[in-house]
C-alpha cells in the first residue's frame, strides 16, 4: 500500500497516524508541506529515521525544491519527481491520502 501525507508533521497529526497504521513494507510518500518531515534537523527527522526500518520513505522533489529543502534531505529517503509519484501509485495495489 502507498500512503500519501501532505501536511507538516509539526502542524497536523497525519504523519503520526500514517506511521502508526502503515503495515510493514508499505511505502510512504511525503508531498506538499509534509516534505519538511524528511529533512535533516527537523522536528520529525527522528520519527522518519525510526520508520525507515519497516517502511520505504519517499519525498516529492519538486515540493522539496519549492521550499528550499532540496539539499537537506535525510539519508535513506528516496526523492522522486512527479513521474516517480505516478509510478508509486501504479506499483501499489491501493493508496491512502492522509488528509
Amino acid at each position: 500500500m502507498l500512503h500519501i501525507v501532505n501536511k507538516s508533521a509539526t502542524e497536523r497529526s497525519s504523519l503520526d497516524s500514517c506511521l502508526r497504521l502503515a503495515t510493514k513494507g508499505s511505502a510512504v510518500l511525503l508531498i506538499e508541506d509534509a516534505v519538511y518531515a524528511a529533512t535533516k534537523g527537523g522536528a520529525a527527522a527522528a520519527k522518519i529515521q525510526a520508520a525507515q526500518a519497516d517502511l520505504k520513505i519517499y519525498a516529492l522533489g519538486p515540493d522539496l525544491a519549492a521550499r528550499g529543502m532540496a539539499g537537506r534531505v535525510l539519508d535513506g529517503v528516496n526523492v522522486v519527481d512527479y513521474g516517480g509519484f505516478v509510478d508509486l501509485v501504479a506499483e501499489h495495489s491501493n493508496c491512502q491520502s492522509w488528509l
Partner: protein
Amino acid sequence: MSDMDMEDDGSGIVKKFMFLNRKAPHGTVYALEGLEVVLITAAFDQDVSLVFTDDGVYQLMKGIDTKGIEVKDFSKTYRALEGYDIEKLYVDRTSMEARGLTEDDLIVDVSVLSDDEMKNLMAEQDVVISF
C-alpha cells in the same frame, strides 16, 4: 433516499471501499459531506467499511446538540446506516482512548480495532477515501 437502492454502474463489480473519517464534525464540512459519499457508495452495492480514527471519533459522540450553532445535526444519520446496509462500523481504539472515550460514549455500536486490526483492514481494501 430509497431511489439510491437502484444505483448500478452496470459492471457488477463489487470492491472493498474504506472510508477513513479523521476529522471532527462541524469545524469543517468534511464529516458531513463525507457521509454523503458513504451513503451513495452503499447504494452502488459496494463492500463498505466506515472507520473512525483520530478526531473522526468525535463524530460519534452521544448527546450532540447543534441547536446553538445553528447547523444540521447529522450524527443521527449514523444510527440509520443499517438501513443502507452499512454494517461495518469500526473505531480505532488508540484514537478513542487518546480522547478519554469508551464505547459507551458513542452513538452507535461499533467494532473497536487494535492498531494491528486497523492495519490489516486498511491493507485489504481496493479503495480508501479519507475525509
